[in-house]
């Protein structure tokens, strides 16, 4: 339990995708005893960063709940894949940024939680330059 960690690996090492591409990968739980595991949630989502309050939307979601009889072996890698949408594209603006990521949230015994995410890029929108009005 002390060294509990989640390792997410995407099949595309560049972590750069275009809309409509297949995002595929796997995650592995390490150092977690099966009896301590309650459930695992995998999300492919975008969220905003910047000066505004955070907005987010989940594109792909999978909940693995071995406690409720769902088949999931925490000792084996779990594969996932989803076709990426056309928008919103990753964006690194001045006060609005759009960030895509794969996030795995692990719910453990005694209310403990572990969350790991791997960012990736959707599209190739360059950083904007400050505009003259």
């Amino acid at each position, binding site marked *: 339990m002390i060294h509990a960690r989640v390792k997410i690996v995407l099949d595309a090492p560049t972590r750069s995708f275009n809309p409509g591409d297949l995002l595929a990968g796997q995650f592995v739980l390490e150092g977690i005893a099966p009896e301590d595991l309650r459930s695992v949630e995998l999300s492919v989502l975008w*969220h905003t*960063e*910047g*000066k505004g309050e*955070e907005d987010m939307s989940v594109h792909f979601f999978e909940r693995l709940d071995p406690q409720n009889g769902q088949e999931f072996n925490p000792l084996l890698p779990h594969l996932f894949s989803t076709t990426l949408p056309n928008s919103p594209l990753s964006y690194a603006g001045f006060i609005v*940024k759009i960030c895509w990521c794969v996030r795995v949230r692990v719910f453990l015994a005694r209310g403990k939680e572990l969350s790991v*995410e791997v*960012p990736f890029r959707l599209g190739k929108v360059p950083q904007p330059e400050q505009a003259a009005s």
Partner: protein
Amino acid sequence: MKPPAEHHEASNPFSTRFIRPGAVPFLFPPEQAGAKQDLDALADRLSSLGSRSQIVGPHGSGKSTLVRQLMDQLAQRGLPSYLVSLHDGERRMPAGWAKAAQQMAARLVIVDGYEQLGAWSRWMLKFRCRIRGWQLLVTAHQDVGLPTLFRTATDLATARSIVAHLLAPSDKNIDETTIADSFAAARGSVRDMLFALYDRYEQRTRHGSS
């Protein structure tokens, strides 16, 4: 929340998601006159103050942040609390708050931004808390006449510690002078300072040091 180690390439450590109350830890000032000041001591003091208490401090001094951490501390002691955050001229408690607090078996009701409430709503809040046997903790910019649990204040050292917490050790985009200047310009409001540092960070990461 600290910006994750593997963050997005254009991530700004002063983004709202990293500096919102609950994401940045509340940093207690150095101990004064031997009075121990930490969350544990604060939780002890809260129970000794009785049914009502207040956290007082100026704008951007960390009241909301402190409240959220105190809630976690109290939850660990088996004292669930219910938080109501009031914004933008909300003169009344949100409808259903009492029922929600009851459902989560709260023993403490926390109202962040108490001065937003009108006199009638304040009276009703106290009345309901008394009837239900809930302890009431409020935050306000000015003393609202309740026993004071804690007075938040800011100083440059605290501001520097918060910035250090947000920045990766290798990140040299914000130097000590910039922090001091931004803190002075924000007139002591850490929140305003962090918003200003967001812009400075953007400028420096895009165009290099200026």
